[in-house]
């Protein structure tokens, strides 16, 4: 298979099967959760075992009102999701990079922020954390 490089605009996060309007950046971060053990037999050399992962997303973009209904989440819809609590606050997410495989899982929105300098478009930032597993989407 030939090597294929993709530009960032092909990498997209979907929440509840919708893209986020005005997105300029989607960042995925997968961090291993370790358990370190030291026994006297290790002679001071730690042994690490990966016991899980913390998967987070950071999205930023231009605040957009009246986004395309059905396919995109507008600013007001993103805020509404950010204010949910309990089980309602768990949202389905899907992430795909170009023609690569898609990954999916449930997530919670850990923060939403807006910036509004007087002479530029208002911007937003959204952070999510996967709750449970983050797995390869079947069929991709």
């Amino acid at each position: 298979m030939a090597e294929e490089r993709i530009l960032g605009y092909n990498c997209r996060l979907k929440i509840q099967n919708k893209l986020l309007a005005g997105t300029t950046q989607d960042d995925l971060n997968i961090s291993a959760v370790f358990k370190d053990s030291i026994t006297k037999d290790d002679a001071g050399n730690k042994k690490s075992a990966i016991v899980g992962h913390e998967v987070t997303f950071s999205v930023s973009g231009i605040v957009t009102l009246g986004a395309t209904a059905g396919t995109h989440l507008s600013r007001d819809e993103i805020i509404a999701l950010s204010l949910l609590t309990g089980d309602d606050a768990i949202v389905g997410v899907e992430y795909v990079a170009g023609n690569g495989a898609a990954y999916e899982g449930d997530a919670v929105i850990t923060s939403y922020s807006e910036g509004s300098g007087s002479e530029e478009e208002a911007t937003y930032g959204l952070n999510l954390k996967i709750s449970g597993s983050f797995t390869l989407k079947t069929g991709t």
Partner: protein
Amino acid sequence: MTNTIGQKLKEIINPITTLYLSEAQTDNLPFCVYDPEYREERTKEGIYKVVGYITLFVVAMTFEQAESLMTAIKTAINGIESPQYNSTFIMEDKKSYEGVWILKAEYNINQYKI
């Protein structure tokens, strides 16, 4: 998204005085010339904004005529405020060269996808 900032400038300035791009195609005063620089800004959906850095020159035989035309042009540019366009005045300059008055104004004019 097609850049229409130049067309918009012609639409609003030509009724005031003839507008030329970069170089006047006449020796008859008064006239206005604009030098544009453009860049595009994108979201992941594509271009959402064209940023125009526009320098305008009004050239006239008298200061009064040049200033009157520049005032009318500024008013016209202020009037383009809409969901599609907005403008920000940056600076102006006034000088006389061999008996001809040249008034310069710089603007940022943004065009948005609507």
